[in-house]
């Protein structure tokens, strides 16, 4: 069970690097969607399957794997952009930063003690690596849709971390968190749409009126 879970976490970490190294919006969105689906499978592997776990799992797969990517693709088509041409941080430097961050995450997570049942799992390094990847994308990309993808990867990292607590916290809290995230993405989607209409572009470099 642990090895299949680790395989999925490794897959998610690999997808981080795919998202960092690509400038084509469809492939980044696809990477985020696959990562969301991999994350959605994990609770079933970790918990004894009762209906609540299965529901949360299926909900996660549906939202992270299908609904959000669908919204992002729609925004992409409306804005008529296919790729990031001038990122703030280039693709090769982002990849190197992401790889370095992944190594640092593995090293740092050794300093944190784990319960015996989590000892063999890659959850903590996977979580930290995804959070770092998310940060790199938030800072390094100029297109609003890619920044949203970065935010999603950041959230996926936090979700991975939350799996450590799946035995302890009532799933009620998890459901509330998932709901909040969903609403958040909808709100972000609406704002992206408004920015597109107001500026006729989704390039955040144009958002520079407000500064000292």
């Amino acid at each position, binding site marked *: 069970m642990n090895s299949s879970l680790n395989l999925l976490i490794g897959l998610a970490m690999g997808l981080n690097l795919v998202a960092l190294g690509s400038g084509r919006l469809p492939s980044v969105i696809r990477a985020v969607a696959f990562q969301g689906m991999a994350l959605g499978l994990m609770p079933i592997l970790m918990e004894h399957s009762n209906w609540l776990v299965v529901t949360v799992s299926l909900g996660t797969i549906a939202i992270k794997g299908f609904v959000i990517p669908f919204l992002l693709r729609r925004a992409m088509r409306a804005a008529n952009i296919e790729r990031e041409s001038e990122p703030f941080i280039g693709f090769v430097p982002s990849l190197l930063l992401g790889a370095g961050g992944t190594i640092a995450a593995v090293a740092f997570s050794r*300093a944190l*003690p784990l319960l015996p049942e989590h000892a063999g799992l890659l959850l903590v390094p996977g979580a930290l690596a995804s959070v770092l990847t998310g940060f790199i994308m938030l800072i390094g990309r100029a297109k609003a849709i890619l920044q949203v993808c970065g*935010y999603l990867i950041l959230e996926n990292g936090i979700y991975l971390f939350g799996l*450590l607590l799946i035995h*302890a916290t009532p799933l009620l809290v998890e459901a*509330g968190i998932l709901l*909040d995230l969903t*609403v958040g993405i909808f709100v972000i989607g609406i704002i992206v749409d408004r920015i597109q209409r107001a*500026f006729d572009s989704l390039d955040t470099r144009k958002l520079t009126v407000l500064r000292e």
Partner: protein
Amino acid sequence: MKELLLIFVPFGGAGLAAIWPNGRTRPFLLPAVGIVHTVICLWLLVYPPKFEPQTWLAFDPLARAVLPAVSLLFLACAVYGVTYLRVRAERPNRVFVTLMLLVLGLLSAGHQARHLGLLWITTEAVTLAAVPLLHFNATPRAFEATWKYLLVGGTGVALSLLGSFALGYASLHGGGGGDLTFVALMAQGAGLSHPWVLTAWVLLLVGYGTKMGLAPMHTWKPDAYGEAPGIVGAILAGGVTTVAFTALLRVRAVVHAAGDGPMADRTLIAIGVFSMVVAALFLLGTRDMKRMLAYSSVEHMGILIIGAGFGAPGVWAALFHVWSNSLTKGALFLSVGNIHRAAGARTMDEVGGMSAITPYSAGIFVAGLFAVTACPPFGPFFSELALVRAGFSTGHSGAVAAFLGCLLFAFFGLTRLVFAIVDGKPKTASKASGKRFPETAGVIIPALVLMALSIWVGIATPSVLHEAWSGAVAQLFLTP
């Protein structure tokens, strides 16, 4: 059950506003709900309810010490909102009124949340509910501000979730049964896993600090406050930041119980002083009156956080400062809103001589200037005096010196800008727009009332408030 009414009455009001057919009468729901909320809040302040320590939601001493201030601020803003939305009748107000009420309900829930996860959910929900309020004006500048607010605020909220998980795992690793109420976490105390507590503290401080607008995570604040309507700015600066502050106070109490108190207090003082320095420097440079309010808010958040680092007397002073800051900031935001509308511009290059066009608002603006820079007889003077005394009594004279120095520079920066806007000759463009947006009682009285409350809370602090603040300090410094 009254404490649940504080949450469900605004929610009900929000639902009603969403289906209310008439746009002209809909804004009256704001003061209607505001009055009910304030009455219940003051009732609970005077007659605090009993509650089970393990409950997730309760009007506990900490909520009792700060929530009434937020409620009073909301009521004043709600009364102002009726006139404001009539003046701005060209904008649809269904979403605005609904979300203002939703924000009030969520703020009530956030202040009363005694569970780590519930606290996070309410903070995140407040963040999201405030988004459409920020771009009420629907200008490109407003969308830009909203985008920055979403990205920075969203990242902050995400980090505080990570921190909450880390604190939860600290409890689990230390043998806890997964009970994430603050009472249970404090009771576990030194049993919490040490490395995880440290990780959690850093993440939660950055996360909720972003929500409060502490430097260097304050970057969303000038944009958001600058572009949002005045009442939204007042609620953000006086209500939403207060939720994040109480969240940090609750987490700080857990970290203290875990035995890392001195470390936590040092980081609080350091980040507080840094916020004050950054705010003072930007106050010396800014030429925009609404952005000025944002930097002033960063400064006061720094003051609150420094207070939280000064031990029990410091927390007491900080709770006092929550009141004086919320009420004063409210008056300032409302008067600046009036001046901005009448002048049609916001920077000291384009605006001048407003004492001739909007005499009342300009008067409140100047009074508010002296209030936020801690001149007697206004509330902030007394709360900051208490804070300085707390700093000396706990042996933090260096931090107190830095604090006083920053206050002085902030005073220079604020007076420079305020008097440039109030004094001099009115600009021709402002004369025309001043006729279009005359000062009416509906936009002056709420600001005046807030100003009067700010004086009252300083010179005649009622004993029930003294008792409420002391009760909250006792709750937070409970050593199991």
